[in-house]
């Protein structure tokens, strides 16, 4: 009961302290959508397709450009499949690593952890605050994209854009939580960043190669990027299994952090 109050106080505080940084990231993500979406009609869907067609087919598949000539494929190749996840992953993994381990190394966690708040409650408040920030940035990306798609008159459904935005949120929150959990377990920010970033990058590469190599379906099954994109959410809507897997990954990271963080020495 008072634990709930403590969680809310912590969430509020994390959002207050980070609001300026958050605003900057929102502008950056809006810019990504703002630069790429209006570019589509200028290229003319078919024209872009003919340029892409001159590339070797393996490369096209690896770049995820196989459907770039369609409006949905274009959004996937640019905003939802490449730039927004790249930016948001930098944000999310950085935030996750700093939230516990970074502050712990710099000494900023001392006051929070010595306050009359349970450690698991403190941790939960901070993870939820991180989820909220990632969510707000995914919403920004989704809303700006949806608006511009309307303005430009691209033939993409709103539900497809929302489905992709939801997947973006789930993907980034999964990696951000992994980084946070590694930091909460080890207390080392560098390890948290390294683990989060290397899983994210290898997952991206696995997704890119899945259409090229033999037994690519195996890669697709293992890669969180594929869980997000293989079902083509912009065109097909929510790929339920993939999104459930992303949520599960986040849950596992939560569990690892909650198991270890309350039990270990801080700042050593």
């Amino acid at each position, binding site marked *: 009961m008072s634990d709930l109050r*403590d969680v809310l*106080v*912590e969430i509020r*505080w994390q959002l*207050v*302290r*980070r*609001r*300026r*940084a958050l605003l900057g990231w929102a502008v950056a993500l809006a810019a990504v959508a703002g630069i790429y979406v209006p570019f589509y009609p200028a290229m003319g869907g078919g024209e872009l397709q003919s340029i892409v067609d001159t590339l070797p087919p393996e490369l096209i598949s690896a770049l995820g450009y196989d459907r770039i000539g369609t409006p949905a494929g274009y959004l996937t190749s640019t905003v939802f499949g490449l730039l927004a996840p790249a930016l948001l992953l930098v944000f999310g993994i950085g935030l996750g690593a700093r939230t516990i381990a970074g*502050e712990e190394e*710099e*000494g*900023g966690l*001392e*006051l929070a*952890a*010595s*306050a*009359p*708040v*349970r450690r698991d409650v403190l941790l939960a408040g901070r993870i939820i605050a991180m989820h909220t920030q990632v969510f707000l940035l995914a919403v920004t990306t989704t809303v700006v994209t949806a608006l511009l798609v309307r303005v430009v008159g691209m033939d993409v459904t709103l539900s497809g854009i929302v489905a992709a935005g939801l997947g973006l949120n789930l993907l980034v929150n999964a990696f951000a939580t992994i980084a946070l959990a590694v930091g909460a377990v080890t207390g080392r920010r560098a390890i948290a960043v390294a683990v989060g970033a290397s899983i994210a990058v290898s997952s991206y590469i696995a997704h890119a190669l899945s259409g090229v190599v033999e037994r690519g379906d195996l890669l697709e099954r293992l890669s969180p990027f594929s869980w997000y994109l293989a079902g083509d959410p912009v065109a097909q809507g929510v790929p339920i299994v993939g999104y459930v897997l992303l949520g599960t990954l986040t849950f596992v990271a939560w569990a690892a952090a909650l198991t270890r963080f309350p039990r270990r*020495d*801080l*700042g*050593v």
Partner: protein
Amino acid sequence: MSTAVIAIDGLVKDYGDVRALDGVDLEVREGEIFGFIGPNGAGKSTTIRILLDLLRPTSGTVRVLGEDPRAGGPRLRARLGYLPGELDLDGTATARQLLEHLAQVRGGRGSDRIAPLAERFLLDLDRPVRTLSKGNKQKVGVVQALMHRPQLALLDEPTSGLDPLLQQEFLTLIREERDAGTSVFLSSHVLSEIEGVADRVALVRDGRIAVVDDVAALRAAAGQRLDVTFASDVPLAALDRVLAGVEELRIDGLRARGVWRGEPGPLIASLHGLPVARLELRDRDLEELVIDAYRADAPEGAGQP
């Protein structure tokens, strides 16, 4: 008569292979200001952080306000105030926002004292904490540690970063808080910084308590450093007689130096009639005390009236 706010018994703490605390025994009584003095790496911060359950002991028992820090949890920490030794305040939040948040975490306790304490320490509450100087950050730390009138304040090197004037103001505040019912445990590496305010002190080195005593007794036991220069040669026999009670005596031409324990009166009387050009008797500093303590396990006379 008075109960213990801190009771530490056989406390050992290892960081991997490093033994930071090697059997610390300590008792701090309710209502006292207790100084915890030791050089860098002595184990002061480690001890304090165990009291707050930021670290868990390797072995030994610890009671804070009668409770084990881990079992006591948030309920116990609600009765404590803590100033970290290395205070890091970042972010764009202002000092006021940070302090209000920390009061919120305590259910609003202390919120009403933020403004008066800030005023007293000339702290600008509306600057982002990140942009504050080290001394100003330290003031934020002091305010948050004391604003909610904790039963026990654990202050890790509270005077570091404060200029002499503010150090005095801080020590005055500590005394007031004590009079209002807060027991205070504070660390420092310099005894002189806190001896005016501490009732008792413990000297710690290499993870062990060397001495616990009240400040006056410690001072007396520590003695003073004597440095006397004569205007002209003094017959050796006379010198021997005069400086007989001086320890660690070194004679260097016309100058004699050593350690004098006890009242200075007899020493000065014995110098009477000799051609003294310059005389200095100065309290010895902490390093010397600790070294002494280790040499004899306790300075002569310490602990005895």
